[in-house]
């Protein structure tokens, strides 16, 4: 069983903020079929595109970073995005595992 208390990603987000970085939290909110990371998995992204944590097994992280940068640039507070197994037109990335995930992005302000 996952022990959320031991994961330190939110603490890391707080450290980034304390050093004057802009931070977006990306959280897996739904999964369908087989997907590598469970609901509640999280990564954080700053305005330079640095990231920590993960929302998949490396399949969609680059697209998530891109979306997070867009959120900061447009100064939007939040956004929901979905990744499917083959969604070429929208994301150019997919989940090789055949699963689908929904990720919620939110800026910490």
């Amino acid at each position, binding site marked *: 069983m996952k022990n*959320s*208390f*031991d994961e330190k990603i*939110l603490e890391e987000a707080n450290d980034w903020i304390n050093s004057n970085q802009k931070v977006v939290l990306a*959280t897996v909110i*739904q999964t369908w079929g087989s997907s590598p990371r469970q609901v509640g998995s999280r990564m954080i992204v700053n305005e330079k595109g640095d990231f920590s944590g993960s929302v998949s097994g490396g399949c969609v992280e680059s697209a998530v970073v891109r979306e997070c940068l867009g959120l900061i640039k447009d100064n939007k507070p*939040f956004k929901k995005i979905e990744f499917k197994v083959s969604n070429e037109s929208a994301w150019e990335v997919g989940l090789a595992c055949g699963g689908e995930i929904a990720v*919620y992005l*939110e800026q*910490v302000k």
Partner: protein
Amino acid sequence: MKIKILQEIIKKKASKTEFAILTNLNNGDTGIFEKDKKLSKNFENYRVHIENFFKSKKNGVIENTEIFVETYIRPTKVIIVGAVHIAQYLVDFARSLNFEILIIDPRGYFATEQRFPNLKIINKWPDEAFEEIETNENTALIALTHDPKIDDPAIKHALNKNFFYIGALGSKKTHENRCIRLRQTGFNEKQINSIHGPIGIKLGGKSAPEIALSIIAQLVEVTYKK
């Protein structure tokens, strides 16, 4: 999410308080849920659903809503009675599976720091030991001594406190005798049948690590059925 909420979450994590992060995916609103505490009015309508997620230790979006719930629940406590050879392997498995473990054994020569480094060991008889441990329906008991003097009091405590898992080592015959003793002390059939005895799922192995594996596999299975 507001920085203030992020910091409150970090504080709760540090103090190991059980809570849940609530997010309204439609408007970006965030809140914190804590059992028996007041909830901000934006989330109050969803209290029953949130409590269900909390109870089943689940993360997810509440059906037909845009509310996302992420729970922070402390690991399940597993009490092992009997600092025997099997227990040494059980401890390793249980650690990597995120169970919180402690061992009770009144026999000092078994329950030594050298055999079980970095682990809470209580060198007392179960009745005494349970006075200093908080237990509830989120606790599991693994009784390994197959000595009625030590196992029985622990099993009785676990039955009275409704532990979600009670397993006891011993052959079918040993377990039958155990059931007879429990019946005589007033436990009903439903309670007695809830004990996993002989303990573990059938893997076929006989070595200490194999038995430990069969026990921990059963515990994980029951944890998810809870």
